[in-house]
């Protein structure tokens, strides 16, 4: 794990916190960076009771078996990434302890645990026109009948890999972008949102 005082967000060079007064009052799109999430990539056989129960007791999370969905418990999330692969999202700083606890609980099992939080950043996109912004660069059907709160998807945004998650129906989306793509994805989103009125929000 990196020494925390050296930790820098993937978008730190854009000084977003200094720009929160810029947006229009009636902005229908709000953008925010949520850097530093703890993330663990977990692989194992969900049909194996020993794997499932170990993860549930150690992480306090049920793993979703429905593709393109996530489950949330006590501030932690488990995102479906594949039939034997999940992304566990939790508070920054908690991932190392949880990864070690999972490794101990799953010792001897055919499972894999990797801390990946520092490889990505998360961009929050919300507001009445947030769906229109995404539609400009994402081929997924984002209509509420096809994609709603509780769902997630690995797909492309303007040709960059992302894990998209819908948190509520305002709608609020979270975009997991690779750290090296974060600058591109942020600038693309800001440009796509400009015509609707875009405000940057400080957390």
């Amino acid at each position, binding site marked *: 794990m990196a020494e925390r005082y050296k930790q820098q967000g993937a978008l730190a060079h854009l000084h977003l916190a200094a720009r929160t007064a810029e947006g229009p009052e009636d902005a229908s799109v709000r953008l925010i960076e949520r850097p530093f999430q703890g993330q663990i990539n977990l692989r194992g056989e969900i049909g194996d009771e020993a794997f499932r129960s170990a993860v549930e007791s150690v992480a306090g999370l049920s793993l979703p078996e429905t*593709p*393109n969905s996530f489950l949330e418990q006590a501030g932690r999330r488990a995102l479906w*990434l*594949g*039939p034997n*692969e999940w992304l566990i999202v939790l508070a920054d700083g908690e991932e190392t302890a949880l990864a070690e606890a999972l490794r101990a609980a799953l010792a001897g099992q055919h499972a894999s645990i990797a801390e990946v939080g520092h490889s990505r950043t998360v961009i929050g996109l919300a507001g009445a026109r947030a769906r229109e912004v995404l539609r400009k660069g994402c*081929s*997924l*059907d984002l209509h509420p009948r096809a994609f709603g709160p509780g769902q997630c*998807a*690995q*797909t*492309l945004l303007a*040709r960059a*890999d992302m894990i998209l998650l819908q948190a509520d129906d305002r709608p609020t989306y979270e975009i997991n972008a690779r750290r090296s793509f974060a600058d591109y994805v942020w600038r693309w989103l800001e440009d796509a949102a400009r015509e609707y009125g875009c405000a940057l929000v400080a957390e």
Partner: protein
Amino acid sequence: MFLIQCPWCGPRDETEFGYGGEAHIARPAGPETLSDADWADYVFMRKNPKGVHLERWVHRHGCRRWFNMARDTYTHQVLGVYQMGEPPPGPEGGDG
């Protein structure tokens, strides 16, 4: 551009996928006993039909799983998708 039904993720744009060539090519059991011609046939020779083709695809920008697809190479119609290791479904299963 067409939609591909990932067996896990559902319908997704073609740009999310990678193509893996002809499916159901079994590696010869005893490579050391093969003639050069037979080895070349295994390594290089592919069907390339105009019509139904059984092929492998990977959901590269999605769940990253490999699967098989029966596709008409002339109309681009996707006739079906099925898991790796499964025999091809339906009448197109007679291909080859």
